[in-house]
């Protein structure tokens, strides 16, 4: 069982938030998320994909085992 984190206003009326509050939250959420989406990606993601691709190409280039290795 996970410990409950729901102790802040757990039983607060959930249906009655002002539309403008909901809208403000929505805009802040998208601003938060869009900032993260726009942040530069670490090189290591691209390096990983390039490495995976290289490995697969090497394997594919050796049909039925490597002649070059003999």
């Amino acid at each position, binding site marked *: 069982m996970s410990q409950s*984190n*729901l102790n*802040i*206003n757990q039983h*607060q*009326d*959930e*249906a*009655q*938030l*002002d539309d*403008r*509050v*909901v809208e*403000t*939250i*929505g*805009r*802040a*959420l*998208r*601003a*938060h*998320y*869009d*900032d*993260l*989406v*726009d*942040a530069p*990606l*670490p090189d*290591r*993601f*691209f390096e*990983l*994909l390039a490495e*995976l*691709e290289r490995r*697969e*190409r090497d394997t*594919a280039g050796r049909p039925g085992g490597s002649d070059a290795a003999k």
Partner: protein
Amino acid sequence: MPPNDFKTDLIAEMPNLRAFGVSLCGSASMADDLVQETLLRAWSKWDKFQPGTSLRAWLFTILRNIYYSNCRKSVREVQDSDGAYAQRLVVPGDQESHVDLEDFRKALTKLPVEQREVLILVGASGVSYEEAAAICGVEVGTIKSRLSRARSQLVAILGWGARTEARGERSKLRRAG
């Protein structure tokens, strides 16, 4: 080997994958590990992806599973001591003016992760309620009630009294605009 269009789509989804990871675990460096692991799994299981469905939702599901199975406890500890987690990632000077984004981010980190992930998924990442339900392994109704609880908790954490404060936010918006 995954076909080229899968690779292209995978690369195109990386920014979203990372944004979801950071939002989920609250730590940029841990999110990068999560994304890396997700890319590895997606690459090796590409043939399990059903064309025509959302690649984003599929990747989010993988990342979330890794997060919940591996990292949750340690991530929490980091998150508590790393309240300003997202600042390092943020490109400055491009913020919404009407809400202090840093305050909002701090409030987000205080939500239970079950609520935070739903807010991010449905409210920002562009996945549907149905996809969010599939990603989280729950019913759509559960997504909706978590979303509503999450909003209420955010309001409580941010100290926005519902109506008065909404008006305050509006006037700030007018002034800024």
